[in-house]
């Protein structure tokens, strides 16, 4: 693996920058969810211009406030991503990290294009759903980059802390499964939110995802609790899962049950649905983190023995 041959140096400014990008992206996800929850997706009918202009800011009232505000934050995040890619390319010794930086740039361009398509095509559910899914993927990757740029990641040698992890459904696979389960929920949830799917898949999915996430985080705590990052991610996933389930019920009640005939998006509907999207994004990011930490810190018993021999030699 290239990471063990190339030594990266911890760079506090770069680390802080990745963190700022992650925070801005989280705010952007909230801003995007506000667009959807306020039914404001088409308040600005054109793209890439807004009311015919690339730079003039329209009056920020009503739905335009949400839609154009979201575009402006997205442009800012796009700019930060360009800086990230260039900075990583110039300063990070890890070639996979440099590739990840460029991949992030590609992803943000795809995401911006999908955003434009939602406007151009007047919100077909599959484009809106793709936009919601790429958004959370991008956010999760900003979080992972923050992890990869952290002192702890850079300055611990993974081969020395590794523990054995065996079996067909080993912990690494289980951790990957949590990512998959949350993606499934993201797809079903967004498909429902944008009017393309029924609610039932998301509800059944919630039961399955809950099982997988509880199983994985308990395994993480009970078997690998000594590995700090795994313990941390497991606890976060459990906490976020409980909040997410409660928010899901609240979103269902306010938007679907009580809000069925609402004349306009009510504050309670907006708050619960936006929070459900935002916590969903945090949950996905933490499942990614769990998987990454599992792969970094655990290895099949056989591979581990070979690894350690290599270190000793």
């Amino acid at each position, binding site marked *: 693996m290239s990471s063990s041959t190339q030594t990266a140096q911890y760079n506090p400014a770069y680390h802080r920058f990745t963190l700022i990008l992650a925070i801005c992206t989280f705010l952007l996800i909230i801003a995007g969810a506000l667009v959807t929850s*306020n*039914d*404001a*997706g*088409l*308040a*600005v*009918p*054109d793209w890439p211009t807004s*009311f015919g202009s690339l730079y003039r800011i*329209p*009056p920020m*009232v*009503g*739905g*335009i*406030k949400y*839609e154009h505000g979201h575009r402006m934050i997205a442009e800012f995040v796009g700019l930060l991503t360009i800086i990230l890619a260039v900075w990583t390319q110039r300063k990070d010794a890890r070639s996979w990290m440099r590739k990840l930086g460029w991949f992030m740039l*590609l*992803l943000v361009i*795809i995401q911006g*294009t*999908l955003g434009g*398509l939602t406007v*151009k*095509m*007047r919100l077909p559910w599959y*484009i809106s759903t*793709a936009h919601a899914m790429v958004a959370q993927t991008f956010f999760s990757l900003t979080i992972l980059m923050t992890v990869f740029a952290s002192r702890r990641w850079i300055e611990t040698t993974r081969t020395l802390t590794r523990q054995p992890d065996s079996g067909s459904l080993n912990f690494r696979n289980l951790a990957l499964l949590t990512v998959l389960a949350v993606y499934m929920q993201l797809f079903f949830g967004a498909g429902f939110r944008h009017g393309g799917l029924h609610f039932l898949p998301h509800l059944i999915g919630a039961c399955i995802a809950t099982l997988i996430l509880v199983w994985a985080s308990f395994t993480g705590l009970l078997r690998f609790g000594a590995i700090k990052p795994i313990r941390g991610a497991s606890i976060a996933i459990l906490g976020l899962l409980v909040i997410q389930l409660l928010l899901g019920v609240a979103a269902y009640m306010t938007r679907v049950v009580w809000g069925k*005939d*609402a*004349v*306009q*998006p009510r504050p309670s509907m907006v708050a619960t649905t936006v929070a459900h999207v935002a916590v969903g994004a945090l949950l996905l990011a933490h499942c990614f983190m769990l998987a990454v930490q599992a792969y970094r810190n655990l290895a099949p018993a056989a591979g581990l023995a070979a690894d350690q021999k290599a270190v000793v030699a």
Partner: protein
Amino acid sequence: MKLALGLLLILLTIGCSKNETPPASYKPQAPAAKIDPATTATISGVISFDGAAPKPQQIDMSQDPACVVGKVPPNFGEAYVVNGGHLQNVYVYIKDGLGNYSYPTPPPTTLDQKGCRYVPHVLGLMVGQKLRILNSDPAMHNIHSMAHENSGWNESQYPGGDAIEQTFSKPELMIPVQCNNHPWMKMYVNVSTHPFFAVSDADGKFTISGLPPGTYTLAAVHEKMGEKTAQITVGAKYSKTADFKFSSSDIK
């Protein structure tokens, strides 16, 4: 690589959807006859509502100050407008039974935006007839038509901006139209192949005139409660009444 391919696929998709030819305007199959104006009949009636109607919900328009300039009366949702048991905003039309006639295209009909509400809330027009959309507000609006049979569109209109003109090429019922800048602004457009339609007024009344004699299926459509139909036969120069009744049990 996969992502690039995915992107390409999406671009192709819009490429294709953009190239879709607009639906051809509706045309009767056989050569059409003209209606003899000396023989036409009139159907009129009242739409009533039985039971307790849902209470109109007051709309909060504070998110755009331009909607509340001067003294504006409170704005209420218009899904159920019931006046002394009479139901407004029901679209009534001849659903079936018309022979093969040709009709001149009527002059444009108007949809206005006033006080951040649509006037009227429900309207009918003919295939090919122009819909002129006006903005009498100091607010910026967008008008988003969510048609299924016809092609949808979304356009913005500045305060006092030029009228927007749209036409519909296929018959379609209750096409939702919404403003995404003021998401409470919703109205419905109904498109028919003939001019025999009406929308019930504040007293629940409607009148359809100029009908050739015949036996018809008359339908009354409400945006939330759906459709009710009645069979009706009118002779030459006849005036007939046909009333419809909706009730709280029709609310889905």
